[in-house]
């Protein structure tokens, strides 16, 4: 039983990285912008966060540095695609490739650095409950933060006025523009917020999840996060569940191997993408589903006054 509790704990931890990044990308996409640069952005944030912890010894400054790096890169991306109207997909891909190389270049000196002892967290009292404590209440605060983030995002998107405007910008930028909303600035704000959250996920990887720096260490998690937003049909709660599902599949695969059960891990690592294609095929067959779920102007440039 103990090992199942620990499996749940590991799943929550693995899912948190995906959830935070995917929720950031969800904000982008709700405003009509697809950022394929997530992987590169997370890598740059990972090295920024790692470097900050090496120099200051404070994890929270590391997270802040990661968010800052993510926001800055996202701002560059935003200016290119929102004001200069470069193709979102091509620019995002370029950002991703750039981020992979640039983070490796900046990080050369940090490969041999070692972080101070990683802190252990436990929720007072609850952590002492047998099994449940080990499964749920000995996590890093950000694991609970991701859950709160989902709740606040649901409220923001579907209950607040600003969220309504954000969705309007993603559905029909021309109407939002006609109503007098600054479409471009709202999109930039959304892109930067999304970038900051991707950055937070990147910094979580290098500071807490795998506390070291090596180039390319995000290892495809940015792409899984991108697939997740589609898999979840752009719903925050489903993003969180999907993140735990994909995180759980990874951990379960190792768990089964450890018990002597052989599973084809190559196939399992392709699973998130297969699931995404299936969901895409399903929702594309049904026009109403698409209208309800997918932001109507996703990926399309907006030219004010045209």
């Amino acid at each position: 039983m103990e090992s199942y509790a620990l499996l749940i704990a590991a799943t929550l931890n693995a899912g948190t990285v995906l959830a935070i990044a995917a929720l950031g990308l969800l904000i982008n996409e709700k405003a009509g912008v697809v950022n394929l640069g997530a992987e590169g952005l997370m890598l740059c944030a990972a090295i920024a966060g790692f470097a900050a912890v090496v120099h200051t010894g404070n994890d929270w400054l590391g997270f802040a540095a990661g968010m800052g790096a993510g926001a800055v890169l996202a701002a560059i991306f935003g200016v290119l695609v929102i004001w200069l109207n470069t193709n979102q997909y091509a620019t995002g891909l370029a950002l991703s490739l750039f981020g992979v190389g640039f983070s490796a270049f900046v990080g050369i000196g940090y490969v041999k650095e070692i972080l101070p002892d990683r802190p252990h967290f436990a929720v007072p009292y609850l952590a002492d409950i047998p099994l449940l404590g080990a499964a749920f209440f000995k996590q890093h605060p950000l694991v609970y933060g991701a859950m709160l983030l989902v709740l606040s995002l649901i409220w923001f998107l579907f209950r607040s006025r600003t969220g309504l405007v954000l969705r309007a910008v993603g559905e029909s930028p021309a109407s939002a523009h006609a109503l007098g909303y600054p479409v471009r600035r709202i999109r930039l704000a959304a892109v930067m917020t999304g970038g900051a959250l991707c950055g937070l996920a990147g910094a979580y990887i290098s500071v807490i999840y795998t506390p070291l720096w090596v180039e390319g260490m995000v290892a495809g998690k940015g792409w899984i996060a991108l697939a997740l937003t589609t898999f979840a049909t752009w719903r925050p709660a489903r993003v969180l569940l999907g993140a735990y599902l994909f995180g759980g599949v990874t951990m379960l695969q190792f768990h089964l191997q450890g018990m002597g059960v052989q599973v084809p891990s190559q196939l399992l690592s392709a699973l998130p993408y297969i699931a995404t294609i299936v969901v895409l095929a399903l929702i594309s067959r049904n026009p109403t589903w698409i209208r309800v779920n997918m932001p109507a102007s996703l990926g399309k440039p907006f030219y004010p006054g045209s």
Partner: protein
Amino acid sequence: MTDLSKRSIVKMVALTAVAAAALVGCGKKEEAPKAEAPAVAKPEPLKIAFAYVGPVGDGGWTFAHDNGRKEIEKAFGDKVVTTFVEKVPESADAERVIRDMAAQGNKLIFGTTFGYMEPMLKVAADNKGVKFEHATGYKTAENLRTYDSRTYEGAYMAGVIAGKMTKTNTLGVVASIPIPEVVRNINSFTMGAQSVNPKIKTKVVWVNEWFNPPKETEAATSLINGGADVLMQNTDSSAVLQTAEKMGKRAFGWDSDMTAYGPKAHLGSAVINWGPYYVKAVGEALEGKWSTGSSWWGVKEGAIEMVNVAADVPEDTKKKIDEIKAGLKAGTFSIWKGPIVDQAGKEMLAKDAVADDKFLGGVMFYVKGVEGKIPGK
């Protein structure tokens, strides 16, 4: 609009160019000879080039090779000039890079990963005047020879320590890719542990990559959750050791000394020392005694070592490690000596038979005590 987009294109091109220059600049480093060679009759230094699969800063496999290269420079001074290209992918790029090395006048070229085998064969056939050395491969030519190290000797010594230090009698291995080398290391680790503790079980998790720290971390976490309290890895990063450190368990360094990555968890590092072989190869090339063949060096030749054994490992275990080293050096001790049985109890090596290199090169079964199945078998 057109004006704007023109400007943006110019900007993008400029940015890309700067980024590309930066990347190229960091991808290729050359160490220039220290002084200009005087014009008077002094023999031209031997030009030697290395192709590395990873970055020199990986702290493991490539780092160990680069230490070997530095030993060449120390041993031969201005008689040699060494250069390296790092992060050469195991693809068509490898052939281009290695061909380029030959074209630049290098007379001895080292390729340090299995995947360079075919590219090196091709380039060697076109450059008869150049000598090629390929690590971990099995194809040779008149000017291409292979070399490798007996990493399983390090794994066995790690096993002896692990067998003594485990409290749960359960060991864990984070394994990379199911090839004989890795399976042999898992078995040797288990056999080492069983030599001091017959109750040992070994759990194995395959990550199917040489280098993916998050995956290595996840695999190590699940092994520990499943009851393993001493871990070894046949992957290239220090992530497994760091995970053990974080979770209060024990683990080993692999390829390079990794003490600093997990000072509390570290039980010892099974390191590869390429220096002795590199110095010998360069010496032969300088004296014109170089000839083709294949070498497989271990503890005996100083290529494998167990270093920085933790202070809390009992004295008698440390003594046993020293005895194993002495036995391997003197040739009186063999790790792969029968009887060796597989998981099902089938005898793979008869009593008192000693495995030859051919047998070792084809090990694709788990010995008794290892749990699970080899993927694809």
